[in-house]
């Protein structure tokens, strides 16, 4: 299979480059439907790996790469359940998304996140599994999870910590604020800045350059410089589930789901 169109995303392999496009209204929230299609994607891209040099992940939605986990689905699914089932459900979801992102993180080809607009929470965690960020100058990044009484759960802290200094990691985490693309480039999160609407074009041009190099060397270099922090990722799942068990989290989720204000990601 060299192309796929699903309910939340589509992808196509062409001349050694896979383009994965997130397209799930309203804001590419990562819920059960997108997770299932991402699971299919990592299996298919694994099969295509020997003939793939680069995978580009981008969004077809206006003003957003991904707003993160589908908190509305999470709240509606979890609220009616007894605590034990609720925790089992969230752990299962986390194990599955971690498996997807770990495969993406360790893929033998180079992965590029071509980001525009909002890239928050789980959306940022998806991008952090990639090797290179190319960001539109209107992109914004945030880890707003602490407002819910949670930590990022899709591998965000271990991967951000792997790549960046703790000053920025703690600023993002403890304030929940959003940062612009210029700041993200200054701290080393973003590799290349693009003009408005140009991130995908620049990602394609970068992919063409990357494809010129030897595949074996490229894969070896990636494995050497970007180890997957498996131990910390495991601990993140445990800590997330421990925090998720507290009643305050469901109350915060309810407040978020009902909030129609201009900054719902801030408490």
């Amino acid at each position, binding site marked *: 299979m060299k192309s796929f169109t699903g309910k939340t995303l589509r992808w196509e392999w062409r001349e050694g480059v896979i383009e994965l496009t997130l397209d799930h209204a309203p*804001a590419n929230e990562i819920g059960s439907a997108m997770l299932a299609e991402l699971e299919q994607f990592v299996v298919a891209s694994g099969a295509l790996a020997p003939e793939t040099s680069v995978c580009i992940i981008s969004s077809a939605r206006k*003003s*957003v790469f991904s707003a993160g986990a589908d908190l509305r689905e999470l709240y509606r699914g979890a609220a009616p359940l007894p605590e034990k089932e609720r925790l089992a459900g969230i752990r299962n979801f986390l194990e599955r998304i971690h498996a997807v992102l770990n495969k993406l993180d360790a893929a033998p080809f180079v992965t590029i996140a071509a980001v525009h*607009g*909002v890239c928050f929470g789980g959306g940022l965690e998806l991008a952090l599994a990639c090797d290179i960020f190319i960001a539109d*100058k*209107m*992109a*914004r990044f945030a880890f707003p999870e602490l407002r819910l009484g949670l930590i990022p759960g899709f591998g965000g802290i271990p991967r951000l910590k792997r790549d960046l200094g703790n000053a920025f990691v703690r600023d993002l985490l403890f*304030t*929940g*604020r*959003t*940062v*612009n*693309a*210029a*700041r993200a480039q200054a701290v080393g999160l973003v590799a290349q800045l693009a003009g408005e609407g140009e991130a995908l074009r620049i990602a394609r041009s970068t992919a063409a350059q990357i494809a010129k190099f030897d595949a074996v060397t490229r894969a070896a270099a990636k494995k050497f410089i970007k180890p997957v922090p498996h131990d910390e990722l495991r601990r993140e799942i445990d800590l997330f589930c421990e925090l998720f068990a507290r009643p305050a989290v469901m109350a915060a989720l309810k407040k978020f789901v009902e909030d129609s*204000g*201009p*900054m*719902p*990601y*801030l408490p």
Partner: protein
Amino acid sequence: MRTLEQTTQEVLDLAAKHFQLPAGSLAPADDFFKKLGIDSLQTLEMLSRIENHFGIELPDYEVQGVSDFRTLAERIQSRL
């Protein structure tokens, strides 16, 4: 160094251009949420537009609760 009046005017011009409104159609005391009817994504776009224009960072929590252009300009001015 810009004056507060200059900053306010630049914010009004930026907002008018971003939301494709006629120049001069916005005033410093206008409530931009009511006047422009903007949602959370548009709020973030405007924040990026302002930060890129002025070359500053404006943390969200410093503009949380701000709804008029004049107060927004004061927050920007404190970062210039």
